[in-house]
């Protein structure tokens, strides 16, 4: 086997098995950072040996054996230093009983989304621990400097070690809350990609979809996971239609539906139906249902606005989120007119979070123009232009502004 081919295998194994291997080793080390360290050493050994000695029949097993041996060395040294700490020996025994390689990526995700880990660190931690994405790439996606993202990750890993957060699937009774934190982290990773300045910033979107797909596979009875995956697929399916031929942002009612990925929409619909059948209606089911109604409206021509407003009513009741209220008001305009929508918006106009939120000002501006308040509408659209970092959205808003003068 050529050296290139062997290092290709190393790369493939790194991509496909990284999270599983880290998870497996973390059970042994009780420490994410050292699990990553010994795995990195094992990969380095693979890069040196496989091109010369050939790729082993079971690459994952080979890597685990090398990493375990390295860990045993470290442990022995540690034991000499600490005069034999009993719980480390116990741990080592416990892990050897586990035998072959179970899929522990899920347990790893639950550890990363533990309530004691700060919320802002959960999504980055999952991306790094399960997928091996570098701190630098995660920092770029989350608009943080690489140094502070690195610190955040190190802090979170130290926290996992110190508070002895277990790498296990939570018990039934604590499952909903823990799963929710995992889903929230995955959605944060997805929307970070989605709201990115340019196409290049959206590289975390496929990772988020992959993680959600993995959870659907491993916990098939959870409706909210399916709904989250559906929600992301609805958005993905329309990605290429978000810009028109001139590079200008196109909202859903003006998108060319020929550019939609209909296979992906089909997948999203099937997941949403399965979620609805499986259990109680949660936040992601409502959001996915709203996307489904938008799609049905464009594809079938039926008026779905009343249904969309009703779905937003439930979403607002469930989340009390100002963003949900904003979107509800935009939908209400299609049913009850712009003045009614503007009256709804006044409820969130004092919310500090809305003042720097581009979609709030864009919606406010468009509604005011529709209601005939030209000056006030132009002012709000101007603020929206000042807040956007996306050139396509800026162009779209400028068209609205020019049309109103």
């Amino acid at each position, binding site marked *: 086997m050529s050296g290139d081919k062997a290092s290709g295998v190393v790369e493939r194994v790194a991509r496909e098995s990284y999270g599983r291997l880290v998870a497996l080793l973390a059970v042994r080390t009780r420490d994410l950072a050292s699990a990553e360290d010994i795995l990195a050493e094992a990969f380095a050994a693979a890069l040196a040996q496989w091109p010369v000695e050939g790729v082993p029949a079971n690459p994952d097993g080979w890597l685990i054996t090398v990493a375990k041996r390295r860990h045993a060395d470290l442990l022995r040294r540690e034991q000499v230093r600490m005069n034999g700490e009993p719980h480390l020996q116990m741990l080592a025994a416990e892990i050897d009983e586990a035998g072959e390689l179970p899929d522990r990526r899920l347990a790893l995700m639950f550890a990363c989304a533990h309530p004691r880990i700060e919320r802002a660190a959960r999504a980055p931690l999952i991306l790094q621990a399960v997928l091996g994405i570098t701190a630098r790439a995660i920092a770029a996606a*989350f*608009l*943080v*400097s690489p140094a*502070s993202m690195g610190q955040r990750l190190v802090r979170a890993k130290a926290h996992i070690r110190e508070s002895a957060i277990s790498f296990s699937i939570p018990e039934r009774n604590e499952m909903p809350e823990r799963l929710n934190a995992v889903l929230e982290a995955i959605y944060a990773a997805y929307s970070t990609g989605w709201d990115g*300045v340019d196409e290049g910033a959206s590289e975390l979107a496929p990772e988020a979809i992959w993680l959600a797909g993995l959870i659907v596979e491993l916990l098939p009875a959870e409706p909210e996971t399916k709904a989250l995956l559906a929600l992301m697929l609805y958005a993905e399916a329309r990605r290429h239609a978000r810009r028109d031929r001139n590079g200008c942002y196109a909202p859903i009612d003006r998108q060319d539906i020929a550019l939609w990925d209909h296979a992906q929409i089909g997948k999203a619909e099937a997941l949403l139906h399965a979620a609805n059948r499986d259990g109680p209606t949660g936040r992601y089911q409502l959001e996915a249902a709203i996307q489904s109604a938008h799609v049905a409206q464009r594809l079938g021509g039926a008026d779905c606005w009343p249904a969309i407003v009703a779905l937003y009513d439930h979403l607002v009741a469930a989340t009390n989120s100002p963003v949900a209220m904003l979107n509800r008001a935009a939908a209400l305009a299609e049913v009850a007119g712009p003045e009614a929508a503007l009256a709804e918006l006044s409820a969130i106009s004092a919310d500090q979070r809305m*003042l*720097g939120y581009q979609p709030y*000002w864009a919606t406010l501006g468009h509604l005011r123009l529709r209601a005939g308040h030209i000056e006030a509408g132009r*002012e709000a659209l*101007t*603020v*929206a*232009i*000042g*807040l*956007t*970092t996306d050139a396509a959205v*800026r162009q779209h808003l*400028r068209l609205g502004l020019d049309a109103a003068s």
Partner: protein
Amino acid sequence: MKYMMLIHHDDEALSKADQSLWADYAAFNEALVKAGGFAGERLHPAAGATNVRVRGGKAEVIDGPYADTKEKLAGYFMIDAATPEEAVAWAQRCPSARYGTIEVRPIMDMRR
């Protein structure tokens, strides 16, 4: 925390900037004020600067830019941000980020 955003412009890149730059700037300032920030000031080109220092009781006055760099201080604006991420997001919105660099600097609280 309050941040000062220092705008460093590459004059050459700026001279090729889009016509819409100043309209974008007006929009940015409007957004900044609405969100509770402080619209900044724009400086005359660094070529017209005067540098003053006193050494051993003797004043030296030198004309021209302070530093011989491609990008020069061209203005500033200030914001009050809850997190460093929010400050970075404002820097990213500044039209000058497309033609130069925005240096984000937290302001020291001297009252403590």
